[in-house]
């Protein structure tokens, strides 16, 4: 039974990676937010399953917190921001999408290679997924770098945090509650600040294209 649960967690990790990859190849901002919501939901299920399989009740609390924050609250805020700013499309990203995907593959190989020796030493139920979680983090980071509008960058930042959370769950059965609450609060404040930031950019430049920020450089 435990083996089946282990494989199920591996499957959820694979779905997480697939969603991270899908986010890179998405052009539309709304679909991006939907994918992020889905990623949060998968994370909730994964945390709950790990908690059930190892009989650690504090992971259930973790899962509930993630549910409230990442599946309900933050997507709601993002939708409101999108409505207020009337964003629908993203412009062409800085690198074209096939090149981004190719770099993504190289990052995945790199992350898997890093994760392999650590996985051999770990004894948790989901040890194979450390490489996957690392890959998610790197892919989201790359998404932040290669996008030209502000909202995909915010989504990238949030999904990076998703990856880190999954890494923590799979490798060490979750972080201490205090650390987790602290991180959750940080993320919330971060999103609030970024929301304010986006309004400011929009007011200044009449567009959310971050390349306009380069004009602020002193010459």
């Amino acid at each position, binding site marked *: 039974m435990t083996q089946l649960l282990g494989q199920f967690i591996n499957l959820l990790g694979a779905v997480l990676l697939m969603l991270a990859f899908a986010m890179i190849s998405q052009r539309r901002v709304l679909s991006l937010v939907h994918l992020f919501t889905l990623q949060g939901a998968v994370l909730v299920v994964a945390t709950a399953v790990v908690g059930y399989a190892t009989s650690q009740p504090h992971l259930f609390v973790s899962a509930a917190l993630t549910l409230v924050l990442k599946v309900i609250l933050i997507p709601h805020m993002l939708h409101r921001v999108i409505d207020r700013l009337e964003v629908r499309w993203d412009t062409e990203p800085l690198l074209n999408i*096939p*090149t981004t995907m190719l770099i993504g*593959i190289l990052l995945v*190989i790199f992350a*898997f*290679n890093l994760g*392999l020796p650590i996985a051999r030493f770990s004894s948790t139920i989901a040890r194979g997924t450390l490489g996957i979680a690392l890959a998610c983090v790197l892919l989201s980071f790359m998404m932040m770098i290669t996008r030209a509008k502000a909202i995909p960058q915010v989504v990238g930042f949030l999904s990076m945090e998703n990856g880190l959370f999954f890494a923590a769950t799979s490798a060490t059965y979750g972080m201490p509650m205090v650390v987790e609450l602290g991180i959750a609060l940080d993320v919330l404040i971060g999103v609030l600040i970024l929301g304010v930031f986006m309004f400011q950019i929009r007011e200044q430049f009449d567009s959310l294209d971050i390349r306009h920020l380069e004009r602020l450089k002193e010459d």
Partner: protein
Amino acid sequence: MQTDPTQWLLLDWAMVLIGIWLAIGVAGVWALRRFALVSHVLFPLGGAVGLGLFALALAALFVPAQVAVLAIGLPTLPFHLRLDALSAFFLMVIGATVAGVSTFAAGYFRQGEGTPPGLMCLQYHVFLASMAGVVLADDAYAFMVLWETMALSSFFLVTSNHRVAEIRRAGYVYLLVAHVGAIGILMCFGVLQANTGDYSFANMRAQSLSPFWASVAFVLALFGFGAKAGLLPLHVWLPEAHPAAPSPVSALMSAVMLKTAIYGLLRVLFDLLSVQLWWWGVVLLAIGLASGLFGVVFAAVQSDMKRLLAYSSIENIGLLAAGIGLAVLFSAYGMKPLAALALTASLVHVASHALFKSLLFLSTGTVLHATGERSLGKLGGLMRAMPWVAWVTLVGVLASAGLPPTSGFVSEWLLLQSFLFTPGLPDPFLNMLIPVVAALIALVAALAGYTMVKFFGVIFLGQPREPRLMQAHDANAWQRRGMAWLLLGNVLLGLLPIQFIQLVDPVTRKLVGDGLGPTVAQHGWLLAPTALERASYGPVFFLLGVAACFALAFVLVRRLYHGRIRRAPPWDCGFPWQTARMQDTAEGFGQPIRQIFEPFFHMQRELPSPFDTQPRYKVVVEDHFWNALYWPIVDAVFRAARLVGLLQQGRIAVYLLFSFVTLVTILLLVRQ
């Protein structure tokens, strides 16, 4: 060499046959302008000799190695020759291809094309003799002499039509890169002889170099043989030289000469060097894949049919290098059966590429002969005027695209099978790279299909883009005989891969210590390199299956319904005018590739605007390597030459001063 002919070894007979080639060449000089004699007697005779060499090499695969020493050469280093399994395999490929190409050439050459026919006969047969000699050479001196002869004679062949400036330039680039490569090979031999002063291969085999020097030898060999084979970045001569040469020569260069470079690489890597390192395999894989992808992407955007085939040759050589790299990788980790599988895949590809590429080049030769056009923009609809050539070319095109049941598919199948076994490698990083490599090979194969559909479709199908194409004549008797022989080879290799692998077995046993022969022989008509449940392929059954469905459908439809046909103008959605210019051009067919793979190309575009009264569209697709690598080197060389040129002051006093300074320096040195 004994005087009694019945006691002669196979190697002695091989030398006799090569000697006959040289004799034919000399006879050509004697009959310098006697066109009929040269083309209808001497060339077919050369082809027959090629056939003899093929049969001889076939027999030589199964006997132990034979050596001979010829009295020519340096006093301390006479020519050593050796006929072992590796030489015999490549000699077989050379002989079979030459038989077909020489017969074709008998019907191809016409009078008055720059070089007198007798001179061309000499250059051609010296080329053949030197290629056969290269694979027989057993010491560095013989090898280099024959290699140089091969390069020089092929240079003269490439510039046969020397009145055209472009062809002269192409020949010059070819000669330059060939010599740069030759320096690499020479230095490699210098490293391999490990300071013993004995340059024979037997001595080099006995040496065991330290990993550092072995790696130096590997890099030099890769540089030197890669320049001749056309691997990136030393490939720039291929797309210039192959189109410039007459078609039979292009066929030989692409099909056979590139393979002598592969022979050299195999000889150095597996025979002369005693161990292989894993990173050599990775480097070979990387360069092979880069060449493969580069070659096929460029082939897809060409508008000259011979340049397209030249880039396709670069792609195939890249795939060969990738296969050899995999074999080196397995061999470095001691996984002999898998190394044998990868090496078998490469050797089958060597033979299959030689056969189908020469067939394709010869068919472009017939098209050129019949229409005088090389540009794809002026061809089209030739299937009606030249049906024999078109159907034969179709088989070659299917083989080049790697489709079952042809020979191209067999080598691709074996190569992909060897990739599937790589998760057994000890290094996890390599394990992860290998699926990516297999994916790239699949991509290259798919793009090759795209290119070949463009090649066949634009030349033979559709409407003729020039009105006079309808008067094109089909291949003549000699051309047909040559192409039929190569077609037979293609078909047999595709349908009887098991028997061919038995021929490859002695070669892989010699090189990596294991072979597929016994495993493959167990299952009759099915090719199963490991176990039958794991993977199997039966080309004969495949072909029979498709043919049976074809025949059954044909017969049943006619029996149950009817077989009436009515001819009418084409439908074309009811559009009344359909001129030849409305169909897709070669540039149009390559446009998706230009768009998707844009970073590969260096494009210069001239686009019309909607307001032009006479709109003009022009796109020139070039190779980045010229601007990034070659022109900077040329500029640096010119600058260095100019610096040295400062010495040439033009005043006598300065030159006398040079002599004076030299004299004083020598006296000072002597005084020490």
